[in-house]
């Protein structure tokens, strides 16, 4: 009786293990690479635009279904290590593909506008519907040099204060001349 139970459990476990192995294979069947494009500025500054090209290749024998790839950016300045919200940096943050045939490759261009100065690492990650782990590219590092920009907090007091002072001085002059 005990042997029969073990036999049934084994028979049930084999497909599950096979499925898990298939899932692991699916994750490993993607090869993701990322590189900056040749026309990127050598020493980018705030406000400049960079672009990167990613290539996602299905290296397995089966199609990869429900492919999703996205761009991630992290700041790595000492004391300021943090993930960066790409909201202001790029309007092109992810791609989705229904299926990627065996041996096929999808190439994507990721434009980016440099908002803040600092040291950054960018990476593209890919997952599939069946995969149980993501496949990242290697990191691409870049440094954004600072640029002197208009500081809004300086503008507001002057833009509102100078006309106000002018109006006050005119009113005072008018009152003084009326008194005379």
């Amino acid at each position, binding site marked *: 009786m005990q042997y029969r139970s073990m036999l049934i459990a084994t028979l049930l476990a084999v497909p599950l293990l096979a499925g898990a192995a298939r899932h692991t294979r699916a994750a490993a069947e993607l090869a993701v690479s990322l590189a900056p494009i040749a026309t990127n500025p050598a020493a980018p500054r*705030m*406000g400049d635009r960079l672009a990167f090209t990613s290539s996602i290749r299905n290296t397995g024998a089966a199609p990869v279904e429900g492919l999703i790839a996205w761009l991630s950016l992290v700041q790595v300045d000492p004391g300021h290590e943090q993930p960066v919200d790409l909201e*202001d940096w790029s309007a092109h943050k992810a791609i989705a593909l229904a299926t990627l045939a065996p041996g096929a490759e999808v190439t994507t261009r990721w434009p980016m506008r440099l*908002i*803040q100065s600092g040291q950054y690492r960018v990476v593209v990650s890919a997952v599939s519907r069946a995969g149980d782990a993501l496949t990242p590219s290697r990191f691409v590092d870049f440094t954004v040099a600072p*640029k*002197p*920009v*208009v*500081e*809004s*907090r*300086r*503008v*507001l*007091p*002057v*833009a*509102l*204060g*100078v*006309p106000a002072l*002018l*109006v006050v001085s*005119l009113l005072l002059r008018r009152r003084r001349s009326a008194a005379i």
Partner: protein
Amino acid sequence: MSPALRIARKEAGELVLGLRGQLWLAVTTAVLSGFSLLLVGSQELSLLDNAQVVYDMAGLITALGALLAVIAGIDAIGGERERGSLLPLLLAPVPRGSILVGKLGGPVAAWAVMLALAAPYFWAIGSTGQNLTSGMAALLALGTPVVLGFGFLGVALGAWMQSGRAALSVALTGLVLSASPLLLGPSLRQSAIGRMFDAVNPFSAALNCFDAVIIDSQGAVSQASHAVVTMVWLAVTAWAAAAAMRRLSR
């Protein structure tokens, strides 16, 4: 006190301290404030280059100064004619040259006040960037002959043309044409016609100098050719105004 200085004081007082001058100063600060407020945005997203904004403001102030100068110049003669006070002025024992110099006192004073009013705006938008001081020096050095030249042009047109409105429309058309490089960037003026226009247009010379000094950090010595264009403009318009004043009879 010389007659020219006396007339200049009267003109400056009327233009800067009178109701007309007060309105003009209010308009000037409103324009500068409006321009500055357009630059206000999220601190993190503010990628506006200081130098570019200082350059834009220098051009804007030059245009405002030229506008005021040409209107004041036309009014100095055409306005006197329409108010019936030109004949007594011409009959006064004052040389025509002194009248001309004195009449420029208004635009000169107004230009000086405009530059003083613009200083805090320059500080607000440009003090964290590059070449603010040299940019303001360039505005003073090349903007002044451009503005005064338009003042002389206004005097000449006011003296030549019997109608103040006709003189004003001709002057404004010329000013808009001359100041068109404010709207057309350097890349749009690279045609043969554009380069020829730039070579003789005092406004282009001033803007190109601002560009070179403020944005490209070039030295003042390299701007001599631009300064020559503005000085030639000042000399030609002064000669035209003097000639028109000599022929002025009523």
